[in-house]
């Protein structure tokens, strides 16, 4: 039942995506062009990276609300390390990513060591990390990065936006990890029954710690890409990105209660949202109409797959 219904949700979603793509390309002839689609890939990379890590976190039955704040903190640190501390930019970015990763690690420690439920822990660090970003930045933005740095966020490699390669790589690696490795298996097991996982000798704590750290890392990498894309750092970067990422993840069929979910689902969910945002805009529908529609699609997609699942199995 489990596996079958998983496949079902993702198939359903993929079908929906195809339909949406077809309908939207009839609405505007500028929608289904290679240029536009690649460009959309560029725009969804940051959310995508975060959503991939979030898929793991949610599959263990956890959640990470602090990713937006980690993104902001890392962005600020990149700028501060480079401009105020005077580190070479690659070193500064690496150090900032390390700091963002550490922020994720701290989440993990609070959750595994002190046994604070993830939602509460990351609600608290959401405030803390954003506050640190504001404090460190002293409300100043750092600008004027060297031209080469923009390769990451604004240029192409082999005709494809640079950051899209990163997203693709992350998606492939993450799907393989989740589907075929012991680590992925542990994620699902912990998400379905943490106690039994511990009794089976799985390293529950270590896995969770690693996941929240990875989530911090993903947000940190997204931050550097973001800075490169928009050429500046601001302490309010990434505000609210957590809800967008969670939307993509649950739309992709990951159970908020843990135990199930796939990377491919998340990616389809992301694409669906991005296609709607872009395609509806090209079709002349305003932003507020689009977000309403995305809300409706989220509810209806989960509803539809619930109905399918139920008609197949239990009473």
């Amino acid at each position: 039942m489990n596996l079958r219904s998983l496949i079902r949700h993702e198939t359903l979603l993929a079908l929906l995506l195809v339909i949406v793509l077809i309908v939207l390309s009839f609405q505007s002839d500028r929608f289904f062009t290679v240029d536009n689609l690649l460009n959309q890939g560029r725009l969804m990379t940051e959310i995508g990276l975060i959503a991939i890590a979030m898929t793991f976190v949610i599959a263990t039955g956890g959640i990470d609300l602090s990713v937006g704040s980690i993104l902001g903190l890392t962005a600020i640190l990149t700028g501060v390390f480079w401009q105020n501390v005077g580190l070479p930019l690659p070193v500064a970015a690496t150090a900032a990513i390390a700091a963002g990763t550490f922020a994720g690690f701290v989440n993990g420690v609070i959750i595994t060591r002190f046994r604070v439920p993830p939602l509460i822990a990351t609600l608290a660090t959401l405030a803390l990390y954003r506050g640190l970003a504001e404090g460190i930045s002293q409300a100043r933005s750092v600008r004027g990065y060297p031209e080469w740095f923009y390769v990451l966020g604004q240029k192409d490699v082999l005709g494809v936006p640079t950051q899209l390669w990163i997203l693709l790589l992350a998606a492939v690696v993450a799907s393989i990890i989740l589907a075929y490795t012991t680590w992925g298996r542990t994620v699902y097991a912990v998400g379905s029954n943490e106690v039994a996982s511990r009794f089976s000798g799985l390293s529950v704590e270590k896995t969770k710690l690693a996941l929240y750290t990875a989530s911090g890392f993903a947000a940190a990498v997204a931050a550097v890409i973001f800075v490169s894309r928009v050429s500046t750092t601001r302490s309010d970067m990434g505000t609210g990105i957590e809800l967008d990422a969670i939307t993509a993840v649950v739309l992709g069929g990951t159970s908020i209660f843990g135990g199930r979910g796939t990377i491919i689902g998340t990616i389809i969910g992301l694409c669906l949202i991005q296609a709607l945002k872009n395609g509806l805009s090209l079709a002349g529908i305003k932003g507020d109409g689009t977000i309403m529609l995305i809300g409706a699609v989220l509810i209806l997609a989960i509803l539809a797959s619930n109905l399918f699942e139920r008609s197949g199995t239990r009473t």
Partner: protein
Amino acid sequence: QSVWTGGDDLPTNPLACDATPATAAAKPYDGGQPTNAPDRKGKTIKVVDVPKLVGIGYFNATSKGIADAAKEMGTMDAKTDGPSKANIDDQVTLIDNYITSGVDGILFAANDPVAIAPVLKKALGAGINVVGYDANSSPDARQWFVNQAEFNGIAKAMVDSMATEIGDEGAFAIVTSTFTTPNQARWIAEMQAYQAKCHPKMKWLETVEAQEDNILSFNQSNTLINKYGDELKGIFGMTSVATPAAADAVTQAKKCGSVAVVGLATPNAMKPYVGAGCVKSVVLWNPVDLGYAAAFVLRAVADGSLAPGATSVKAGKLGDLSVINGSEILLGAPTVFNKDNINNFDF
């Protein structure tokens, strides 16, 4: 604590303490140019207006101005679409979509001058005419910017109004949206420079953040009143959200007359307080005019009648507007609304 250290590191340029107008140094055109823009002279153009965010009174007003202008010209097909939060990312994404959909012109009010630059340059690269208003981008990322009032002009008007109300030795505090909001940060920086230069004995107590949240603005204003007691003589509201909320706080604390509120705000939101005499003067340009002017500037750019080196531009009923700082067009001096004139405005 008292000194403002936020915002950017740009130099301040306080005006003279008396009414001597600033002598603007002539500057060559420093805006950008669209590549291979088609000839749009006289043709109906499709324009999108992307404000910082939609859903607040101020940008409703600018949007109305743009619509008015479009109707008046008859050759502009304009619509407003903006992010629901003042968020750099959403704004960039929206503009990107409109570039793809193929508009002829983009009007924008930037959430961040630098963050928006890459996408605007992309628009220029696609042959689209780009004009900013309200909040500027880096100059080379757009063609022209319609400046509602120069930062130092606003600063002077605000500080002078406050000084008139609370005297040259009064203490005041500031309620702003966030320290990172570019316009507000610049205004505060200019206010500080101007105050130090022209009203050196005024006491600068502190600056608090209140997002774009009117209840929080209200609470923060109350906290300031409670904290400083009689020492506090005035509150500056730096946003059209903070100013009415500060006025409400003063009203509800029964401090009308003993705590002055000076700030930027739309007249409609301020009518009750100005009418009740609790607030004497509100500073703002007319945002409807701002939008109106921006639309005319865009039309002129598309027609080729506003080209680098021009010194003025015709903006419908507003008449001739002059070019400053190379590629900016000045709307005029800010309006100071008071009991006598506030009811003449509706926005």
